[in-house]
């Protein structure tokens, strides 16, 4: 497989996942706020901007964050390289350059998503709220997963797509937990303690609300929410599960068996998983969740760079 094609598949996966994750967070945050009859401790828009990692850019473009400008910024803004529309555009551009290597169904599905999202009028949607738009994005991402699963041969191309999906998802969940934990556990004096609704929103944003109740049969407890999202072995959006996906895709590419590694990316993936498998949530909270997740996110970034060095970049022969 050409390095350029592997590179494009990797980023195709990442951009689709980033679009979905951003849509999930936007949608759930809005609805939680809507459900609260009054907003006892003010509207906290900053966290979701931090999650996108674009605080500085936001401050340059807008003044105080509010429902309208946050939605515009995260969903539509051409100035925000991580906005949902920008992610979908870039996913489609990547797919276009490799359309001979993905299935016809995948390309047509993604192209259709691109056109259908393009028909949304940002101004109209901003007034209507994000549910309709975000719902379409999430559904579009799921459909793309389904179409890919049903039509793409299970060769290296599939694995590069999968590693892109999984790495992005792992990192987005890590950011989500980090930011939400910081915000929710540090209420301002006038705001009072956060209620369960906020934690429910966090669970819903990763589609883990029902799963949480099946697992714990207990009221929402922040430590358990963190445990579920970080360490759960089977929930498809937990950091541990996604990291296992990253490792398994990387091993499939290099044809490496368990217990060893073929390159730096695999070594780092194994290192992350070691922690996620054997650390307990009380240990993590004791040493500090923020520093723990910061280290995990740093490792994810290094995995991305190591994949690029192993498979995508070429030093030209002299």
């Amino acid at each position: 497989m050409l390095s350029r094609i592997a590179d494009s598949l990797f980023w195709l996966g990442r951009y689709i996942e980033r679009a979905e994750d951003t849509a999930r967070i936007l949608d759930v945050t809005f609805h939680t706020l809507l459900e609260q009859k009054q907003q006892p401790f003010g509207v906290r828009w900053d966290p979701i901007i931090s999650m996108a990692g674009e605080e500085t850019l936001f401050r340059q473009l807008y003044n105080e964050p509010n429902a309208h400008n946050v939605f515009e910024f995260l969903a539509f803004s051409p100035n925000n390289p991580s906005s949902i529309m920008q992610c979908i555009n870039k996913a489609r551009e990547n797919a276009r350059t490799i359309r001979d290597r993905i299935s016809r169904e995948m390309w047509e599905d993604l192209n259709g998503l691109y056109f259908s999202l393009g028909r949304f009028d940002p101004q109209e949607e901003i007034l209507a709220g994000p549910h309709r738009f975000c719902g379409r994005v999430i559904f579009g991402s799921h459909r793309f997963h389904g179409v890919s699963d049903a039509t793409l041969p299970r060769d290296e191309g599939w694995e590069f797509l999968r590693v892109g999906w999984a790495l992005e998802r792992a990192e987005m969940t890590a950011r989500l937990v980090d930011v939400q934990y910081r915000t929710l556990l540090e209420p301002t004096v006038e705001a009072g303690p956060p209620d369960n609704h906020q934690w429910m929103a966090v669970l819903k944003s990763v589609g883990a609300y029902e799963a949480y109740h099946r697992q714990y049969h207990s009221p929402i407890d922040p430590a358990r929410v963190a445990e579920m999202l970080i360490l759960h072995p089977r929930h498809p959006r937990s950091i541990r599960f996604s990291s296992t996906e990253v490792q398994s895709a990387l091993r499939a590419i290099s044809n490496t068996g368990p217990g060893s590694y073929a390159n730096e990316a695999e070594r780092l993936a194994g290192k992350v998983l070691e922690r996620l498998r054997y650390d307990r949530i009380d240990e993590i909270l004791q040493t500090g969740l923020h520093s723990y997740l910061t280290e995990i996110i740093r490792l994810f970034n290094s995995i991305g760079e190591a994949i690029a060095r192993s498979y995508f970049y070429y030093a030209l022969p002299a």
Partner: protein
Amino acid sequence: MTTLPVCAADPGLFGGYTAGPFYDEMFASQGRARSHYSRLFTKLGGMAPSQFEERRKLADLSFLLQGITFTVYSDGRGTERLFPFDLIPRILPQSEWERIERGLSQRVVALNLFLQDVYGRQLILKDRKIPASLVFSCRHFRREMVGLEVPHGIYTHICGIDLVRDSASGEFMVLEDNVRTPSGVSYVLENRLVMTRTFPEVFQEHEVLPVNHYPAELSRILRSVSPRGESDPQIVLLTPGIHNSAYFEHSFLAQQMGIELVEGRDLVVDGVVVYMKTINGLKRVDVIYRRVDDDFIDPLCFRSDSMLGVPGLMGAYRAGNIALVNTPGNGVADDKAIYAYVPELIRYYLGEDPLLKTVETYLCDRSDHLSHVLANLPQLVVKSVGESGGYGMLMGPSADRAQIADFRDKIVAEPRNYIAQPIVPLSVVPSYDATSERIAGRHVDLRPYCLYDGQNVTIVPGGLTRVALQQGSLVVNSSQGGGSKDTWILRGEC
């Protein structure tokens, strides 16, 4: 002939249709369809405009979703546009097609012999059948190719030869040859696919010769020219990339043939061998079907500012380590001034009379022709010899005084760069006019795609019918607002 009077109360899609002064491929005379068009005419005549419009939207959506678009740069942004598809097929009877096919084969073989000769012993120049000065002054003549043995002696693996039907005689004639990197064949295959989906019942009523073996035939030829002659050579299609207007076609053909689609940056030359950069290291390449122009394939050999090519590619080619399809330097054979000599080439190399007519051509660097051209500019079409795609043209009858004066200056300054021809009154085929929601006659041409393996010429039946969708327009190029039609060769029809 079948006569089907159009009902006066409900004229339907053909309401207000007149054949006009041009050769009408569907109608022998007003309201009388030619026999090979009779079933289609009956079908369309019985269709309400709204039904037709519905099918048309379906077809457009299908093209849009598949991303079968080309990019226009004139608006400065590089917008994606649909290549307009006209749902009414263009039909030719098999007997007529077979005559065309023989003429095309003859022409392709002669052009290949010409290229072998011009880059080899140059006998035709020594015999003074064509002026040496004319050949050597071709913009696309490549000195670098002289004396080079090309694999199997094949230059013209893929030719797109543009034909038009002259309204005066009703016969097909050659308008121009495209033997460098002709494009458009993907539309032939996609148009057919969309047609069978949109109009299945019409399709079933006709026995249309299939076209979808094109990729397999091309793939066979690409394999056969591999210099290492292995059973499983590494073949790639070299594209300028996603921003090229024909990018869809490049990826389509690569996918259909199961070969790697590469950009210049994916290839590297090391020790006069071409490699591609894969996730498992460098992998040797044997055959390159290149859709990058000569000028850009190798910055060390041709244009040094090219970012699209591969430095050292021509060195690997000279060393015999790689096959290039089509061969560099072919542009000398489709130069519009050389075109005037192709009938002579056919006689010289094959000892046969040309089966297809050509358009009378005035070479501006011949003083007797030049004076005629300058005196008759408003009646002529003037073409720049090295251009393609409808660029650099003057259509005398529709040009204003300023344009004519401008071209006169250009011709006088650089006569070798221009030829002139009388305007060929192109035939018309009934086509859908979206504004009036009725069918009207529109001018068409035909580009069949010819594949040559050194022994035989294979041509998929039909080719790309391009249609000038603007009323009265004679320019069919997609870059100039043209569209296309599915082309049907009907089995057994004569």
